């Protein structure tokens, strides 16, 4: 079974600085997708960024980028120019590329605090 591990229960960053959240996963498949979701205090799950395993290029969405290391099964999220609104729980998630059900497997999350 696939597993997702987030080794940092909590992280903090100063406003305008850069922070990196770690995620590792375990799978025997070669085709899959990886996601970072943000969950603010409102509880709404918001997709931050997505990476297809077959793509070598790291995904980027404005201030958010990933470092995808397929051989190491690592998928870290970098937040640049951190803003107060970035404070939230961040969840890394894995989804198999084939199989039809598209089930997500989540890590336990990292709580990010942004200090003014």
């Amino acid at each position, binding site marked *: 079974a696939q597993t997702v591990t987030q080794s940092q229960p909590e992280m903090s960053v100063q406003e305008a600085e850069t922070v990196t959240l770690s995620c590792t996963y375990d799978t025997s498949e070669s085709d899959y997708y990886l996601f970072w979701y943000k969950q603010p205090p409102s509880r709404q799950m918001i997709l931050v960024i997505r990476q297809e395993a077959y793509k070598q290029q790291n995904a980027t969405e404005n201030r958010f980028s990933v470092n995808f290391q397929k051989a190491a099964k690592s998928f870290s999220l970098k937040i640049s120019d951190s803003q107060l609104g970035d404070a939230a729980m961040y969840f890394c998630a894995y989804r198999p590329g084939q199989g*039809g059900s598209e*089930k*997500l497997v*989540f890590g*336990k999350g990292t709580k990010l605090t942004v200090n003014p």
Partner: protein
Amino acid sequence: NAGVTQTPKFRILKIGQSMTLQCTQDMNHNYMYWYRQDPGMGLKLIYYSVGAGITDKGEVPNGYNVSRSTTEDFPLRLELAAPSQTSVYFCASSGSYNEQFFGPGTRLTVL
């Protein structure tokens, strides 16, 4: 376009009571999911559906039931509520090869 809607937002149940959590999506997605999120944890899959009339168990299905009679609706039934079912419940939907869209969640407390 409302996306994924869930009702109720909050509910308190007594041990042994039953209830149905409602979930509706208006994106014509085939795939729908129910997750639970316990304090300090990630989301765990309870049940999922790949289309109307088709459902299957996820990681933590015990104590729950689902049905999928239409593409839009995917209700989650709790029978004989127990304190261990105190959690936040999320419904999600997904089109083929797209990300999952989540509802706002239902906070359930069983006392």
